[in-house]
């Protein structure tokens, strides 16, 4: 299947995208913060319209990897990226100055802690839409409603869109943040441990939501929770830290990783021995 980029011929790691799909792949991706290297030689191709779970112990570079995919690394002073990240046909760290703003419209992101802006629910969703040129009140309303419906929040908040988003419960806030990422209609959704701060019931809701969303979106989710990866992932990538540098050690379809891992570390990690 060629999950891992072929070691002999790295050029092969990124295939031409199939028609109509926005593909996402990395080739020999390295990331460092100052003198500290966080990621080393990560090459993988994310499958479209599926859930790819990134798992691995703390400090193995999972979240750093996610931040490379929408250039959020730009926010950290001193970070340097080498290698390739290709979204569609664009090489996002390429030599020609690529506008990260355009990229982030295609690649949405949801964070570990729900981070609504300190505004009303409505304004949280309207701000990105307005910023990207949606002025028509009718259209705004329609897109906000559909985003809220998609995350199952519409029925809960439709009568109080003007109340502060901070007043929602933790689970609701996180679903609002997902809705906020969806209003721009990205094709790829990055999720950085979206359930780690939530209670089991809210977690269940969000997991159901992720399974619905994968019909339309390519989802990459970082998770600490192996059970969660088992429940929702179609593909799994295991990261490991070697002397502080994160590396990809195994990548494949979920059943294969969980039942017939090839790397000995994978087996030990999944069995809870490490």
């Amino acid at each position, binding site marked *: 299947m060629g999950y891992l980029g072929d070691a002999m011929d790295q050029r092969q790691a990124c295939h031409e995208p199939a028609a109509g799909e926005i593909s996402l792949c990395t080739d020999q991706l390295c990331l460092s913060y100052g003198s500290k290297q966080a990621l080393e030689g990560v090459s993988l191709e994310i499958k479209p319209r599926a859930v790819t779970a990134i798992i691995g112990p703390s400090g193995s570079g999972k979240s750093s990897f996610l931040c490379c995919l929408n250039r959020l690394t730009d*926010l950290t*002073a001193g970070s340097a990226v080498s290698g390739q990240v290709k979204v569609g046909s664009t090489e996002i760290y390429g030599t020609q100055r690529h506008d990260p703003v355009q990229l*982030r419209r295609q690649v949405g992101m949801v964070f570990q802690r729900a*981070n609504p*802006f*300190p505004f009303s629910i409505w304004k949280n969703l309207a701000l990105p839409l307005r*910023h990207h040129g949606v002025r028509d009140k009718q259209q705004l309303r329609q897109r906000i409603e559909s985003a809220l419906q998609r995350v199952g929040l519409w029925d809960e908040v439709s009568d109080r869109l003007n109340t502060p988003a901070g007043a929602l419960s933790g689970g609701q806030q996180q679903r609002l943040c997902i809705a906020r990422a969806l209003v721009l209609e990205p094709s790829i959704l990055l999720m950085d441990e979206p359930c780690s701060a939530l209670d089991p019931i809210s977690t269940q809701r969000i997991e159901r939501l992720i399974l619905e969303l994968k019909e339309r979106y390519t989802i990459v989710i970082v998770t600490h929770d192996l059970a969660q990866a088992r429940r929702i992932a179609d593909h799994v990538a295991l990261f490991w830290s070697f002397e502080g540098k994160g590396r990809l050690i195994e990548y494949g379809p979920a059943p294969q990783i969980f039942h017939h891992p090839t790397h000995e570390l994978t087996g030990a990690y999944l069995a809870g021995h490490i």
Partner: protein
Amino acid sequence: MVEAATIAPPLGARSTLGIDTLVWGVGLALLALFGLLLAEMFAAGLPVLSLEFITGEASDAGRSGGISAVLVSTLWVVALAVGIALPLALGTALYISEYLGRGSTLYRLIHGSLDVLSAVPSVVFGLFGNAVFCELLGLGYSLAAGALTLVCMIVPVMVKASVDGLTAVPTELRAAGSALALSKPALIGHIVLPAALPGVASGVLLGVARALAETAALLFTSGYVLRMPDSPLDSGRTLSIHIYDLAMNVAGGDRFAYGSATVLVILLLMINGAIALVSSYAHRRTTDS
């Protein structure tokens, strides 16, 4: 009872009573001293306060009448100084917090120069203002020249407070904004500035307080004419200069000096209270979500 006997006796059981008494004594004496000084000022100053004192015209070199002209001059100087300093300070603070890394040389250069600027004695600013604004720019002794001099003095404290407010904006909000593909100006305008507003507001209030308290830098820039100014190009006397002049140069001016000092301190207390309100509001807002 048996256990009690096994506890070791105190090692060299020195009494600390002496030290404790000293700390209590010094601490309480200091607090009492400042309390008494303030009480003394209010006792001498409050009886002077009246509607006539606030709105009346001064007569007899300030020994009688009111301080309306002084208040108007003060308002001009403070409003102009803060009005000019605000965009400068806010722009600088935004540049420092949003565009410069904390470790960069330029950051240290700007920061260091503002630190040093805030240590320059106010009388030196007065000479600078006299040479540049009064003479070079031809403003003469005027409220405008005084205000421009004050701008140089209050920019450092306003920058510092604004930078503190801006860097306290949670990184999660910035990350959320960036992830939603907001451009940098939009991120600053829609997310960062509204969230940093309390910090910026307390910076403005600190600037107002500094400007109100300043005396030496204004002696030879805005002057000390005791007359109602018609425009900021007129010379005029601020509250603090009025206090100085009454105390030093006007025999029998003590009573009204204390009256003016009371007005000045009440104004400063109000600003102090406003700063406390703003920061507790900011604190509530960040702990809510």
